[in-house]
């Protein structure tokens, strides 16, 4: 079956999730990937949304992090302060899924302002949402976003959520308990932090991917891992399930634009 680069990205993100994991899910691409994983190889994936729904089992893709279907199918629904304080903060969650408007070479995330300065920005984005603490506390973080020179920048204009700060040792110094962004999954491939420098390097490409093009669409001098692997294309089953999930959503979503795509982490 033919597939789009967005489908390749979502399938790649879904495959990272293992059965039985706990996963703090944002809306949009993270939610698609997590629900795809649950509908295929990870039926016992525990989906946790910042609305307080723990173990949600939506049959269709929710449109917001607070859809009724999440509460109706959850093992437990807790308050918003509780989901952050008792469930996210202590490091109980295996994986946090984040989006971004800008991402830099150390995996730091900006969803606040772009250009100009804070008081008079070129683009005012929605802000932090749950992202700073998801980035701090989940055992590991997966960032999912489409790759371009505009989104993959040498240095973010505003650090909304910390990846590896300015390099090795930053997370430890700040007392951030999770391991940080261990994978950035884009429509072009997969980036992972170099264990020595914490800089994001290309570790996975998709079938037919061209490294020069990927480097061209990165705002820093992207290094390529010596262990670069090619990621298998989506199986027919993965594509059928993903398309089935998407078909259950109202077709009401407008085309995204820079100011719309990045909704903090989790909306």
């Amino acid at each position, binding site marked *: 079956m033919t597939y789009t680069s967005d489908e390749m990205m979502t399938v790649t993100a879904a495959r990272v999730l293992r059965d039985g994991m706990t996963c703090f899910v944002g809306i949009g691409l993270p939610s698609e990937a997590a629900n795809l994983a649950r509908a295929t190889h990870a039926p016992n994936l525990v989906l946790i949304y910042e609305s307080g729904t723990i173990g949600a089992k939506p049959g269709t893709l929710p449109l917001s992090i607070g859809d009724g279907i999440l509460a109706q199918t959850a093992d437990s629904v807790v308050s918003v302060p509780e989901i952050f304080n008792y469930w996210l903060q202590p490091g109980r969650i295996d994986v946090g899924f984040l989006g971004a408007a800008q991402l830099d070479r150390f995996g730091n995330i900006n969803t606040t302002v772009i250009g100009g300065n804070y008081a008079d920005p070129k683009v005012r984005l929605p802000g932090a949402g749950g992202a700073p603490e998801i980035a701090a506390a989940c055992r590991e973080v997966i960032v999912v976003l489409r790759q371009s020179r505009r989104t993959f920048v040498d240095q973010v204009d505003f*650090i909304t*959520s910390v990846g590896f700060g300015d390099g090795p040792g930053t997370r430890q110094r700040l007392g951030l308990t999770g391991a940080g962004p261990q994978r950035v999954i884009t429509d072009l491939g997969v980036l992972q932090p170099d264990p020595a420098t914490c800089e994001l390097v290309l570790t996975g490409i998709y079938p037919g991917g061209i490294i020069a093009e990927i480097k061209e669409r990165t705002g820093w001098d992207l290094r390529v891992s010596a262990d670069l692997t090619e990621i298998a294309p989506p199986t027919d089953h993965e594509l059928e399930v993903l398309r089935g999930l998407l078909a259950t959503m109202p077709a009401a979503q407008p085309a995204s634009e820079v100011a719309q795509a990045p909704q903090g982490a989790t909306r």
Partner: protein
Amino acid sequence: MAEIVSLAEAIAANVHDGDTLAMEGFTHLIPHEAGHEVIRQRRRDLTLVRMTPDVIYDQLIGAGCARKLIFSWAGNPGVGSLHRFRDAVENGWPVPLEIEEHSHAGMANRYLAGAAGLPFAILRGYRGTDLPARTAGVADITCPFTGETLTAVAAIRPDVAVIHAQRADRLGNVQYWGITGVQKEAVLAASRSVVTVEEVVDELEPRPGAVVLPSWLIAHVAVAPGGAHPSYAQDYCSRDNAFYVAWDAISRDRAAFAAWIDKHVHDKVPMPAGGQA
């Protein structure tokens, strides 16, 4: 003891120019009809507090009710920008809007501190981000036992909290269920509270997952069936996803926005599902 009154009376008695107003409801149970009443009563200089300002505050900001917004995520969920919010921040229209922004965990804990009668709460948050330099009410704090550095956030104590619930009994006890969000904390943190409800019933029979707020905690209850629209009230009505999408076009244009507010808020012409005016 909560008095059951009309929505107009409830808002007039509790929301005054210059107040700090928290209208909460996390995706679910957003008190939109109460927001419209605040616009109808032409309140000014409000400090609006809300984790996810959302369409409800886009409307109040566009209508010129607010001088400041305290928030943690200002977007139209699943759709995109809040255009009235951005116009106020970027262009000062219709009046300049001061902002104070936090993370969700920070805002939740600020409400929690207010609810607990404490001047601050502690969390593992904000560290390493550019937020503390740009916002009030965030400070480092040292654990007296371990020496570890954590983050303190200042309590929020709104003058008034407004929430929407499924139902109340005739004594004014309030019950809501489904996603319960941060509403309990907002009400407990506020000096006074207004609750709009889908209906008043003789008895609040227990419901799984329900929060009950006792009548003596609340100033006024007002009946507002469908008062969460385009948000929803679990087991009463569904989220009007199409309206959130339609809001994008309405709110992009100052004149279209003004016309919409005149018609559907000031003149109270009911909105069809999906928001087509």
